[in-house]
């Protein structure tokens, strides 16, 4: 019982005060609220940097590299690995592939980030804002293009009417975004082209090659038109880039050191995904799969600085080495100990260890690189291929020879229509060979073959031979009509969105 004294009441009041309310929210320090992220024009620049940052993620860059490059025939996997990258190499795809899941998700994250800016900035705005909107449109197009070439069949097959990938436009509701179905390959290409055209229109600033600008959009348009077999436009946009005078082919030792230098000042690179020194991914980099060595670039055993499990294939190396003076040999570092080439002993026959250094040693860091997505040499090759297909043989060979000269090859090694006739090759054959030599390990080869209705043929040592029994059979041919020319849509995505239909 409470005594009715003031004393007691006072004490009760004290308690009541102690029963204070403490309902307070706190804000994070590493994050900002989404409402504040794009609230006014000054936020557009940081948000655009953010879009590039989403692109820079290893889930896109590294996984994308594996699934774009490893199906080609410039690479040889010297030993089995439990990593999902093996499946991309061996064409033993599964629908729960880690790298496909990574790539698919990250690509759409880039698109979504870009869409936020695209939606926020009106077309009629200041030059700076238009530029930024254009950059986001470029990135959105780049994402859709890479998605459709990984998950959709080559454009020439069925004239682009095969299933492509979902098109993620700006301004969709959550519900719409969650139930997107696959557009046709053609629809995706058309969307990509329209974005790139608009991007080129909006962009007027010449940023360095870590960022998109008008010519970057032109360069990707040239590639997209080439893939779409629209030769006229491929030539048109390749010309626009070549003639823009923004870029130059690197020569001599500068060319030989293409991938080691500071990337932003490289005059040949049109667009690279810039990685800073603090973004060295060490053993989890692209380069660690290709190379192990010291900071001077001398090769060392497997596992010292990298896994060094993926080599230049014997097929590629032998082809390149027809001309030992070819400067493009500098991108291969054969693992030689005491003058003796080393072999990965884990398969029979053994695999020669031709290390690839296109993804190593940027700015003196063994595993650092800023993967190059577009560079001037490709523009010449696009023009050459389109010309070859239009039967402009001289024009095609001129561009090919330009690159061969740059690679240090002498007159004897240059092509003439007569030499082609003797060798029984077409202009397209040599253009594709040159693409292979020049753009090896940059994610082109399998597409170049399949979109031209050619097979990937791998008659060289590597784990792809493990698909056969006995393992000494060194033959593998993947026809352009093979189901596994394209990857499975990540099953998890299909489970969450039943509108998505799986590839056969």
């Amino acid at each position, binding site marked *: *019982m*409470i*005594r009715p004294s003031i004393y007691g009441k006072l*004490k009760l009041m004290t*308690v009541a005060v102690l029963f204070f309310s*403490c*309902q*307070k*929210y*706190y804000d*994070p*320090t*590493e*994050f*900002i609220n*989404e*409402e504040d*992220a794009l609230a006014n024009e000054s936020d557009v620049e*940081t948000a655009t*940097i*953010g*879009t590039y*940052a989403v*692109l*820079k*993620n290893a889930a896109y860059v590294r996984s994308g590299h594996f699934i774009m490059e490893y199906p080609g025939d410039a690479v040889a996997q010297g*030993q*089995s690995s439990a990593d999902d990258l093996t499946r991309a190499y061996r064409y033993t795809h*599964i*629908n*729960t592939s880690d790298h496909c899941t990574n790539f698919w998700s990250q*690509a*759409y*994250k880039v698109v*979504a*980030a870009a869409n936020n800016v695209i939606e926020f900035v009106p077309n009629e705005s200041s030059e700076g804002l238009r530029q930024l909107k254009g950059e986001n449109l470029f990135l959105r197009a780049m994402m859709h293009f890479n998605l459709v070439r990984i998950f959709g069949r080559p454009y020439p097959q069925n004239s682009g009417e095969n299933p492509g990938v979902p098109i993620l436009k700006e301004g969709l509701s*959550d519900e719409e*975004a*969650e139930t997107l179905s696959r557009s046709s390959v053609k629809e995706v290409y058309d969307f990509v082209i329209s974005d790139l055209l608009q991007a080129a229109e909006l962009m007027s600033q010449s940023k360095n090659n*870590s960022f998109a600008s008008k010519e970057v959009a032109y360069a990707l348009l040239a590639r997209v038109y080439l893939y779409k077999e629209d030769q006229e436009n491929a030539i048109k946009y390749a010309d626009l880039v070549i003639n823009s005078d923004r870029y130059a082919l690197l020569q001599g030792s500068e060319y030989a050191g293409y991938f080691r230098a500071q990337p932003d000042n490289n005059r040949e690179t049109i667009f690279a995904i810039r990685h*800073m*020194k*603090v973004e*060295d991914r*060490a053993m989890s980099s692209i380069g660690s799969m290709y190379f192990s060595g010291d*900071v001077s670039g001398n090769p*060392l*055993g497997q596992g*010292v*600085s990298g896994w060094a499990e993926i080599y230049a294939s014997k097929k590629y190396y032998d082809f390149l080495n027809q001309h030992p003076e070819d400067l493009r040999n500098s991108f291969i570092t054969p693992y030689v100990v005491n003058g003796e080439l080393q072999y990965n002993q*884990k398969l*029979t026959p053994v695999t020669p260890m031709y290390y690839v250094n296109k993804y190593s040693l940027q700015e003196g860091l*063994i595993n650092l690189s800023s993967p190059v997505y577009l560079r001037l040499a490709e523009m010449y090759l696009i023009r050459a291929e389109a010309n070859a297909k239009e039967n402009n043989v001289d024009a095609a060979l001129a561009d090919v020879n330009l690159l061969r000269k740059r690679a240090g090859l002498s007159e004897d090694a240059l092509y003439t229509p007569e030499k082609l006739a003797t060798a029984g090759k077409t202009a397209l054959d040599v253009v594709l060979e040159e693409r292979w030599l020049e753009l090896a390990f940059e994610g082109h080869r399998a597409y170049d073959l399949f979109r031209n209705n050619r097979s990937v043929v791998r008659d060289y040592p590597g*784990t792809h031979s493990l698909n056969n029994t006995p*393992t000494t059979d060194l033959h593998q041919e993947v026809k352009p009509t093979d189901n596994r020319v394209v990857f499975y849509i990540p*099953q*998890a*995505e299909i*489970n*969450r969105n039943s509108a998505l239909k799986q590839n056969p």
Partner: protein
Amino acid sequence: MHKSDSRRCAYRRQTLLRYMIKMKIMLICIITSLVSVRATTYAQKVTLKFEQATLRDVLDEIQKQTGYDFLYNSTLIAKEQAISLTVNDRDFKEVLTELLHPRNLRFEIKRNTVFVRKRGPDVNPAPDRLPAANHQQTAHGIIRNTQGQPLSGVTVGLKGTSVATATDEGGRFSLPAEAGQTLVFSLLGYVPQEIAVPSSDGMEVQLFEEMSDLDEVVVVGYSTRKVRYLSSSVTTISSEKLKDVTSNDLSTMLQGKAPGVVVSSPSGAPSSAPRVLIRGAGTISASTSPLVVVDGNIGGNYNPADIESVSILKDAAATGLYGSRAANGVIIINTKRGEAGKTKVEFNNSFGFGNPTTGNFRLMNSQELYDFQTTFYDRDPSVLQNNTDWWGLAFGQGYVNNHNLSISGGSENVQYYASGVFYREEGTLAGTGHTGYNFRTNLDAKLTDRLKASVLINGNVNKNQLENSRTMYDAYTNLPFDPAFDGEGNPIDARFHPNWLGREKENFLHSLLYNYSKDRSWAISGDLNLDYTLTDKITLSSYNRTQFANGQTAQFFDRNTKQGGANGGELRNGTSSSNRLLTSNRVRYADTFGEHDLAILAAAEAETTTSDWSATSGKGLPSGRDVMSVATDVLLSPSGAREQVGFRKYLAQADYSYNNRYFFVASFVNEFSSKFGKNNPMANFYQLGASWILTNEPFWQENRILSFAKLRGSYGTVGNADGISNFAALGLYSITQDASYSGLPGAAPYQKGNPNLSWEKIRSANLGVDLTLWNRVGISLDIYEKKASELLYRQPLVATTGYSYVWVNAGSVRNRGLELNVTSQNFKAGNFTWETSLNMAFNRNQVLELSDGSAIFNPGARQPIAVGYDMDAYNLPIWAGVDPANGDPLWEKVTIDESGNRSIATTNVYSEAATSDSRQFTGTSAAPKFTGGISNTLTYQNFTLSAFFNFVYGNYVYNDTRVYFDNDGLYEAFNSMVLPKGWTRWEKEGDKATHPKPIVGGNKDSNQSSSRYLEEGSYIRLRNVRLGYNFPEKWLQSARISRLQVFISGDNLWTGTKFSGPDPEVSLSQVDLASGVSSFKYPVSKKVLFGLNVTF
């Protein structure tokens, strides 16, 4: 036999009586302070109706109704006869005064005991009340407990008379009695014993503790209760039972000790704390760790050495008041307090050695590996020049060193307890260890008659040396063909060894010379608790705590090692600090109306935690220089953040009981957390509980078999808010380095917001029964159902939303189970006793619903969350064995045709078995069918031998590391395991083998994830065996030592299992990703320890 005349005898009896009372008071004081009794409710009103009854009857009835213990010399009231009275709902003190005063008696209440005494100065009993004036004999002897310690204050009475005495501090007694007469020995908390007086010699009597522990007082929620009166499911473990296993971590000690409390350790590293899961996981993405409450407040620091008792609250009625955060059960820890009286100094020490368990696991030696590999691989015989036992080089003998000194004592008004702990364990894996220091001071002071204050301070420092240089990975995978040392005995740097064959070119022994990974932390917590007695019935309390913690981590990879070579040396430093403030303010009202007892509690609590962390890393450090300023460049961008989170809670509870037969408890909690969305930050929880003590019913006949029986039931809701980010509800853009590009700051979408995000809610029901048979066997049985809904779930999103996930409240998971606890005094005779206790728990988990309508979350995961299945059920490509024709691996391939018909065939193509159609539930789960522990304690004279086993049954373990050393030729540059008994390798056509033909480069993906690597994880382990000896007291007296015990103790000496790895124990915490997986296991240590405990 002593001889004495009657005068002396009478005189002594009188002093003995006084002494006895004094002892009882003291003893009660001690016991009550020991168990921290606070405000147990006692009835104040009585209703009586007697005709021609004795005073004793009346007092007994008052005792029954009020719950107070009555102490009196029966001679005082023996002759009182024929009382008739009727009282209705009156204060029992008034009634007592009216009863006793006319009889020249008085009473006083001390603590919870009513002492009835003679009024006035003359308390000498009349001589005629002596049993027999001519007695010449005295019975004398000594009374001990089961540990052989003398018991003081034991009442020794001569049966059928009022002659009684109490034992002195040495447990000795003597009283006049003749041979053949029966003596009754009794002491609170012990089973009374009757023994006939022998014809000669002294008596050696042993008293056994009450097996039921029913009178132990436990802290439940915000109040204390005798176990006897609980309506909820609570397991209490005394410090003695707790501390058999040697560790500096409480959860390790809890393993197997309490039913339904699954403690599992993914690593045997001295720095690794096990996971604790109570009654199964009821969440998908949030925490499954129980809430820890130290000395009455949520959270807090403590060292196991200072633990007085641990209570584990499991059902809603018990966890209720911690409601919103008690979904995973509550572990309540009370630290030791000082006792008024003689200063007590305790010094406990142990020292011993540890060795890794190896179980059924063995790696191949050079010859074995050569023989195996040459069946499929061209291996040069020169590899046999080396035979390196990498496992043996990585794992060796460790040691444990454990010291604890405590001093306690005090006066009536101020009591203190101060303790210091030093614990050092060097792990069995090279370079790992743990060092802990702990200091605690607990002060309790009675400031005025009404105001009590407690100040509790704990400080600790922990240092851990962690695995570095990939020691464990290399121990399991390095080839015995590669040498560890050069000609001069120095470890070889494998990178530059010309003929190194192992895949990783790593020799951890070389790296360990230079590298380290360690962390260091300190924490201080201070509590100030005030209790103010406003009136007899109202108490105000304020419990306040402040906690500071600071941690540092450092990893150094020297430029001379493989790990640091690429970057010319690497150093990574991290710091973190946090501070937490908590206040809990309570009002308690307790009253009694006749046979009705009511206690009401209301409380308000607020808590806020601020924490920050940062990490820097550098590269290009000169060899051996492990400070950041010598780094020549940045390795990774610096990182760091600061954040704050708050909780606020109001609660009310009512406890009601009727006549010590029926008990009811109801509570309500409202809680707010800053973690949740602005639309739903608050939640309400309620709990109800009831119990019925059948044996207190008047209709219950004295039953020799069933001495106690109680039924319990509870129902209620609790919540879960832990384990999710403090900002899980917000839509966020990241502005960290990850969001930057080309060195420019950016902002990138990071998390989708959900303003409706709210508390996870768990509805739980519990039914229990507690029985005591023959006063020797205690049985507790509980069945429960926990249904968690609105689960906090990090729901993966369709990629086209642009986000990976959103935090939602989704789905429902049910856990049902049964728990059994049996304690039994199997045998006692003379100096020999045998006690057994057994606990077992069965839990079944099932996902009931996933609210977005999907049947499965995380499809493709090894343990997806699927409706209708156990959360821990495995879903994998199904291993179909080895093709006898060619040694190919086989899996099941499921085909579903157009009309939905499912057919199963086998395939040797893994990609066909790994499709979503072909992946199947294996019918096995990482969750055990049951878990438990059994302990046996044998005591003979001064020796005590105890053995404690824990067991886990019916779980399956995914033995992930077999991918590396059981790979059918895929990794010829890794060592292989020796196939355990029963496993066979395919060699020729027709072989029915468990293992495929080995092929260079692997046999068709045979080591890819499949049910092949699932193994039965059941085990039983001799967790501890201990032999102790208490030195006889007479030897110690001269040294003023009150107790001296030596012991030898062994931890984990034996494990019975079929598991092929070194140690079958894995995390059983269900939700975390490591659950059920054994991967490069740091096996638990077998320890042998020698100990010495001294009390002054």
